[in-house]
């Protein structure tokens, strides 16, 4: 913790960045984002296993970005998100410094995003055992059982879009669901509208999702919407060989190769 605070103070005091994004103790047993703009505030920085909100969601927010160069406390999923965002031209070495942090609270100093990428590439995106089991159960269901499962889970959704807001990859200034001329996705939160919204979101995240669970953690109704993106990660692996966020910008499902084995694309 001391190392983290020291590093944050150093970055602020040397004017290397204008703001350090980290975690602080929140209310109840929650932790929350802290924006360190002067070194006294850095003493509030904490890090422990409760710090699971993906802070990368803030680096594309105009209110935070407009402060100037940022530094971010980044666990592995946050680092993955940063690399993905960099490949989509949302952040770069000129506007972001990454302070890596291991689960044991050890600080990793990265000189640039390339070093972050090298670190990230040591680890594959793997679905954890508990969710793996749920996905297996879903796979074994008949289509009608699976339909019932998703109708039951998704019908309470009231479309507050906390999932979208908490997701670092959902940074579009105007989301498809907000269009009304034409209206692609029904606005009302009825059964069909909810299904369409969550399926559309999962599709837009395929090949980009960093499996941080921010969407499910943000859901006030505790709907396990991350199962959809996890399933997409599995499918991307079995059908397309999997993916890792990469600075080269080769997004799994938006990259065209002339020698693609599928002939419909040629």
């Amino acid at each position, binding site marked *: 913790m001391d190392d983290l605070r020291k590093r944050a103070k150093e970055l602020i005091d040397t004017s290397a960045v204008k703001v350090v994004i980290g975690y602080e103790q929140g209310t109840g047993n929650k932790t929350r984002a802290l*924006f360190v703009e002067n070194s006294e505030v850095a003493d509030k920085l904490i890090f422990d296993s409760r710090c699971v*909100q993906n802070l990368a969601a803030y680096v594309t927010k105009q*209110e935070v970005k407009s402060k100037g160069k940022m530094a971010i406390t980044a666990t592995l999923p946050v680092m993955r998100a940063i690399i993905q965002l960099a490949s989509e031209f949302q952040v770069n070495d000129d506007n972001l410094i990454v302070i890596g942090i291991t689960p044991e609270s050890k600080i990793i100093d990265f000189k640039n995003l390339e070093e972050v990428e090298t670190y990230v590439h040591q680890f594959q995106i793997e679905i954890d055992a508990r969710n793996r089991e749920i996905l297996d159960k879903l796979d074994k269901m008949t289509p009608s059982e699976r339909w019932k499962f998703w109708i039951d889970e998704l019908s309470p959704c009231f479309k507050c879009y906390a999932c979208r807001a908490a997701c670092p990859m959902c940074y579009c200034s105007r989301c498809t669901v907000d269009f009304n001329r034409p209206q692609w996705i029904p*606005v*009302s939160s009825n059964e069909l509208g909810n299904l369409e919204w969550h399926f559309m979101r999962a599709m837009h995240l395929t090949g980009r999702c960093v499996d941080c669970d921010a969407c499910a953690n943000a859901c*006030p109704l505790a709907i396990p919407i991350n199962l959809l993106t996890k399933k997409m990660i599995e499918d991307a692996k079995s059908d397309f060989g999997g993916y890792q966020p990469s600075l080269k910008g080769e997004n799994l499902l938006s990259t065209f190769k002339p020698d693609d084995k599928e002939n419909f694309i040629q």
Partner: protein
Amino acid sequence: MNIERRLVRKDSLEKLFDILRQNKKTVFAPVMKNGKASFKPVGSFSSIAEDYIQTTQSSKEVIFPRVEKFLDYEKNGKEVSIKGFDYQSVTETVLWGVRPCDTIGFGTLNSIFNWDFKDEIFNARLSKTIILSFSCNKSDDYCFCTSVGGNPGSTAGSDILFTKLGADGDYLAEVVTEKGQAIVALASELFEKTESVEKEKFLANVPVKFNQEEIRKKLEKFFKSSQWVEQSLKCLGCGACAFVCPTCACFDIQDDAHGKIGSRMRCWDSCGYSQFTVHTSGHNPRSVQSQRWRQRIMHKFSYMPERLSVYGCTGCGRCSRACPADMNILEHLISIQEVKI
């Protein structure tokens, strides 16, 4: 009318529930799913959740649904035929297990929906709803009803308020309205006469944290404060706070069009969304999150008391519990109170 006080034995609650069902009333009560309690139509007494501080969502959805269809239309050449709202579809509904911080909210919603325009659909639903509430015997750090004019045993807005007299005790039933009396008449043998009962000692202790009148006065000069920016920087701009709130009433009118047929409906909306105030021109008078957060607080603690003579917050704490970024309204109100102007 004067509040009538009766005693309901703990075993009689289930009988009361069954009598309501036998009388063909739809009963909404808290049900537990994925560790969260929410109001659902229930058929059996045993499915009602007991051990929770507060439901995730308020019970406003029963009277102000997240989607309310106003009309269906069909275009036929130049003719348009319209089928309006079916008032017969609004049937008698009992809300069971509501907390006093929700029942008070129905009064607030009533002021909003009858401010200038009388919203007949809202009024039809409210008039057909019977509110059987339960006092709170426990609270958490997010609760602050006593700071906004409520209390854990408030009868305001209830038709009957039940207070559990001790951990394994019977219930004091306070019959507040004629609708409540009608319920007593359905099951009069379950509502025994009783001497006066001190219910206060059985209620949760919710300390007063701020003075809402002081906050209201302060807000008159607070519009340009830098606090809005500081408070809202971590806000992610979702609508969770508004959707779980018992008094948030903003909505959007949407059409669901399928060629020649379609319907028009009212859907919940939130001032936290970046698109909430976007003009057709593209201009957005609330272009950053701090302006949207300011609107939320100003609306509840300044504009509503000024225009409707009611505050827009019942202190239920749901918004703070639901927020994925830990925007805690109580914390923010206290910090507004502490600022010297």
